[in-house]
């Protein structure tokens, strides 16, 4: 068990390192940061000074070496814009992103599980038809469009929820639904097919032979087995929640890591882009480790060695 966790942590670190390398290069080959930081009519010597100040005059491999050495110590440099350590800028926004992504995941699960289960219990029935339409809509409507539509209907027309910002539960509803939308559809279909598989098994027949009420057969015996593939997909979708947060946070002006990365990209605020992507990778790797351990909780046959 410990060995398993250790090896997974090492794999995670390797993945995070890979991401950081890609971002480091991508940021540097797409433009000159120093040129953006100084007025257009500034003296060339000023640009040279800025480059020197931030080490941008060094060869790429030296820059990377310095970057890596600092990153290991948690130093991603200072934000040009916020005049704060980049990691602090990002860390301040992690709770907002986590709140949004976790809420989106919960919304997804709370909608998808019941609809998926009820669809499987009566294939072709009322719930099943509703679930199919719902899944089709979910998979064919892009997140940004769902977000704008949600604002138009629920904020502008009905005035139920605010259009943007972070505050109470009121502010959370629309962004969480928007972010969870696409995954909810996929999860509904997956739950349905997993349940259909399980409902056919001998142990379900056995539970019925015991005289266990059908409710109990479905929600106890079948659902826990169907949850095994569902949890796998949740692990994958966590990446979509984090990735989607970039779009959703921008639409709803949600002060999270995703929106901060977008702003930093527009400002060529390297340090923040790097710290932000680093943070997102960590959130992703950690969540996947949690999912792996969750398997063991659900399925006693899983062994970690």
């Amino acid at each position, binding site marked *: 068990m410990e060995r398993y966790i250790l090896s997974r942590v090492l794999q995670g670190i390797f993945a995070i390192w890979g991401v950081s390398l890609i971002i480091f290069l991508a940021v540097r080959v797409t433009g000159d940061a120093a040129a953006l930081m100084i007025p257009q009519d500034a003296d060339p010597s000023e640009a040279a000074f800025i480059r020197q100040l931030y080490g941008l005059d060094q060869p790429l491999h030296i820059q990377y070496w310095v970057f890596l050495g600092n990153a290991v110590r948690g130093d991603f440099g200072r934000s040009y814009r916020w005049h704060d350590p980049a990691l602090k800028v990002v860390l301040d926004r992690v709770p907002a992103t986590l709140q949004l992504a976790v809420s989106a995941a919960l919304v997804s699960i709370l909608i998808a599980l019941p609809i998926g289960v009820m669809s499987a219990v009566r294939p072709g029935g009322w719930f099943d038809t509703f679930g199919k339409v719902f899944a089709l809509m979910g998979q064919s409507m892009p997140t940004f469009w769902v977000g704008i539509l949600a604002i138009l209907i629920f904020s502008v027309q009905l005035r139920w929820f605010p259009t943007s910002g972070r505050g109470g539960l009121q502010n959370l509803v629309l962004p969480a639904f928007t972010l969870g939308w696409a995954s909810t559809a996929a999860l509904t279909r997956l739950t349905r097919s997993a349940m259909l598989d399980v409902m056919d098994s*001998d142990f379900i027949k*056995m539970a019925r032979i015991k*005289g*266990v*009420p059908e409710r109990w057969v479905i929600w106890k015996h079948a659902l826990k*087995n169907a949850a095994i593939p569902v949890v796998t997909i949740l692990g994958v979708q966590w990446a979509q929640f984090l990735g989607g947060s970039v779009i959703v946070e921008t639409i709803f002006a949600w002060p999270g890591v995703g929106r901060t990365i977008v702003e930093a990209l527009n400002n060529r605020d390297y340090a923040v882009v790097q710290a932000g992507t680093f943070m997102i990778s960590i959130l992703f790797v950690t969540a996947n480790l949690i999912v792996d351990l969750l398997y063991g909780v*659900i*399925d*006693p*046959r899983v062994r970690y060695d």
Partner: protein
Amino acid sequence: MTEPLIQIRDLRTYLYTRRGVVKAVDGISFDIHEGEIVGLVGESGSGKTMTSLSILQLVPQPAGRIVGGSIMFEGEDLLTLPESRLQEIRGERISMILQDPLTALNPVYSIGNQVAEPFQFHPKEDGRGATIRNRVVEVLQRVGIPAAETRVKDFPHQFSGGMRQRVCAAIAIAPRPRLLIADEPTTALDVTIQAQFLRLLKQLQQEFNLAVLYITHDLGVVARLCNRVVVMYAGKIVETGDVTRIYKQPAHPYTQGLMQSVPRLGMKRERLFQIQGQPPDFLDLPQGCPFWPRCPQAQDVCKVEEPPVAAVGTAGTVRCWFPDLTGATQPVSSAV
């Protein structure tokens, strides 16, 4: 003779498949008495499992439907009961052991949890006020699970096939049912484990005075275990009778064929006899007697008209135009 525990009359269970209607159980009638072990035999695909699932009314959905007949059990016709009453009967009055112990237990719950369910859902005073946990341990000990107190929290995959089948037996006998259906319970087990399991089943049957419907295609087991035999072919009963008569003087050519395929003590290591031809295709049954294409005694009439049912031996029946009635004590009477 006393009233039978269960009386099945003209039971018909059809499966509506994409390729057509499978008459998996097609008008069968038989009784099981209190404390009696009845063997239900036939090649695979003859409708044995569908018969047992029909008794519990758990035929596969949405394809399966019981389209006719009656099943009288303890004064009620099971086919007319509402689902809530059936749930009370299942597991408490009638229980069943499935063929494959590897798939019959839920992999994600401990066996203690699964053995506890019959007690949970059929709360019955046993006069001692024993807790469910104690009763679970007790019944596991009864079926011979070593160290039952500690093993209750283990999961199915931590048990061998034979042990898992014992757990299933524990679940089946836990609430002291009157009728136990065992659907080829030893097919998936090793030979030595099979013998042990049969011994256990026999002990339990005597201890609780259970009526047992024992489904198998192994006539060797039937000889050791059963009082009476019901032989099925293509959804119909072709012969019934007590075990000694069926072994000594099988009346139906199909039963005779089955008998010749049983290895007997002292037999030379020759190739076992096999009934010629393919098992019947439910979607394309021949006219007349469904067995005639494989029957060594088939005559013209067999190919056109369904055979009548004749009495044979003591309370036996045979469905054939030309049965071997050497053992018959009654004249032919046609019915059904």
